[in-house]
């Protein structure tokens, strides 16, 4: 069974302000991703738009709030919401993050980091088992963008993700911008990360823009802001990924300072070009 049902072409994160433009002419975009938490209401425009779009495009549901890396149990109410959404929408893919966002009943609206060791591995794998049981389908787990490291980590992120995937059967979502951001922030080699990544488990790629800041020592500190074009070195890193992976579903994320449709479509077109290059390499 294929690890993804999404088309091996460009997709974008769906924003309601692009609804009319997408229905008019979505090219080159072939699929859409929504944030699960924005579509758990009972009705109204969000649900009506999603129903309509789902008749025309494969939809990827991307959760941003389940807190898979949380110390506490998963929120059963939220699991039920995700199950309801997957039941009626029957999306082509469901993905979530290697991160936590809820603690002690409080949702913090950010993707927070966790150390990588035997204890956190067991916890994350248990939570993914629980989610996959609840929604009745395999999920893709996304690598985070990191701003700091933990002294009690005992394995690398790629080792951690590979082992979670092996234990739970989940696929992986490789966010190429996150690789670049984390590698820059933690002084790692992004190409080595890509070389170490279990590509046979990848069902989707993400690309987004980042902002540049500095830490206390004047070292670059990149912030995963999703508020601008994808940076050139991230496109270069994408070529490296595609050379190993071959063509794959490729998503452009642009969540803050959302641009007009032609600007977003131009980013998707750049992604399409990279995918075409990769396909030609495979064929050659």
């Amino acid at each position, binding site marked *: 069974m294929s690890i993804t049902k999404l088309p091996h072409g460009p997709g974008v994160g769906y924003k309601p302000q692009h609804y009319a433009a997408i229905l008019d002419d979505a090219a080159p975009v072939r699929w859409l991703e929504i944030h699960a938490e924005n579509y758990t*209401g009972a*009705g109204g425009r969000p649900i009506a738009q999603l129903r309509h779009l789902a008749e025309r495009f494969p939809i990827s549901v991307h959760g941003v709030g389940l807190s898979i890396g949380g110390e506490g149990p998963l929120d059963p109410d939220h699991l039920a919401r995700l199950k309801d959404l997957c039941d009626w929408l029957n999306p082509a893919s469901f993905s979530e993050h290697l991160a*936590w966002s809820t603690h002690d009943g409080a949702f913090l609206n950010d993707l927070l980091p966790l150390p990588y060791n035997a204890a956190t591995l067991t916890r994350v794998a248990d939570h993914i088992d629980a989610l996959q049981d609840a929604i009745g389908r395999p999920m893709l787990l996304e690598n985070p963008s990191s*701003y*700091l490291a933990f002294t009690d980590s005992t394995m690398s992120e790629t080792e951690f993700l590979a082992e979670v995937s092996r234990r739970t059967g989940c696929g992986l979502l490789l966010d190429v911008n996150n690789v670049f951001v984390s590698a820059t*922030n933690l*002084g790692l080699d992004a190409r080595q990360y890509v070389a170490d990544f279990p590509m046979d488990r990848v069902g989707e790629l993400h690309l987004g823009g980042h902002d540049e800041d500095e830490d206390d020592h004047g070292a670059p500190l990149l912030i995963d802001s999703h508020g601008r074009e994808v940076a050139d070195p991230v496109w270069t890193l994408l070529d490296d990924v595609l050379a190993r992976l071959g063509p794959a579903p490729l998503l452009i994320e642009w969540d803050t300072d959302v641009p007009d449709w032609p600007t977003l479509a131009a980013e998707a077109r750049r992604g399409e070009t990279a995918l075409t290059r990769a396909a030609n390499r495979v064929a050659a």
Partner: protein
Amino acid sequence: MTGQTGFHAALLDPSAPVPPGLTDGAGRAAGRRFAVYRNNVAVSLTEALIEGFPACHRLLGDDTFRGMAGAYLREHPPASPVMAQFGADLPGFLDAAPQLARMRWLADVARLEYGLRLSYHAADAVPLDGTALAAMAAEDLSASTFGLAPAMRLLRSDWPALSIWRKAMNPSAPQAANRPEDILIARPDYDPEPHLLMPGDAAFVAALSDGAPLGQVAEQALTAQPDHDTTRILGLLLQTGSLTPPQPETMP
């Protein structure tokens, strides 16, 4: 060891030291790297409140609203990842805020804004066709009960909450007169709109929502307001798609 309890507490308290066990890539203390997460949490939740309560934001001013939001998100962090539900406790928080003693009406403006948001996400309903209603015999009409659309909401304010909201959203709207206002939130298609109700209307809508037959509903409104205009409120409910088809009589 860096447990999430310590991480969580330090996220919400900017004066707290960075938790131990967090470093940069070279093993040096994480320092302001931790502030990225602190900032993400405070800014994203504050922005969510500004987006959800635009009139309150304008009425308080940006600095005051952000200060209030910072206190609110620490006292009442979201209880679920569904951000559409964030802010449910804001009206009560504003009611109790001592520094807002001279703006007691602000909590009702927040109730109106939160009500509009709940209406936006409420379940769809097939509205009652007004022509079917007009074709009914008077005694049948009087004995009929009606459903109300899930997106319809009734709000009773001791303040001119709707007029204050309108003026905040549109500076050319008339100045609010100092009197209580009853407000009906209705959602004809997908866009909720607030409507000012006349005296007796709120009793009418409340009786309808209790499932009373129309004749009894009209009587209760007349008790609340002797010159109550049943036709007007019925027209408003019909025209905004707030009435749903007559319910079959249920046996006790």
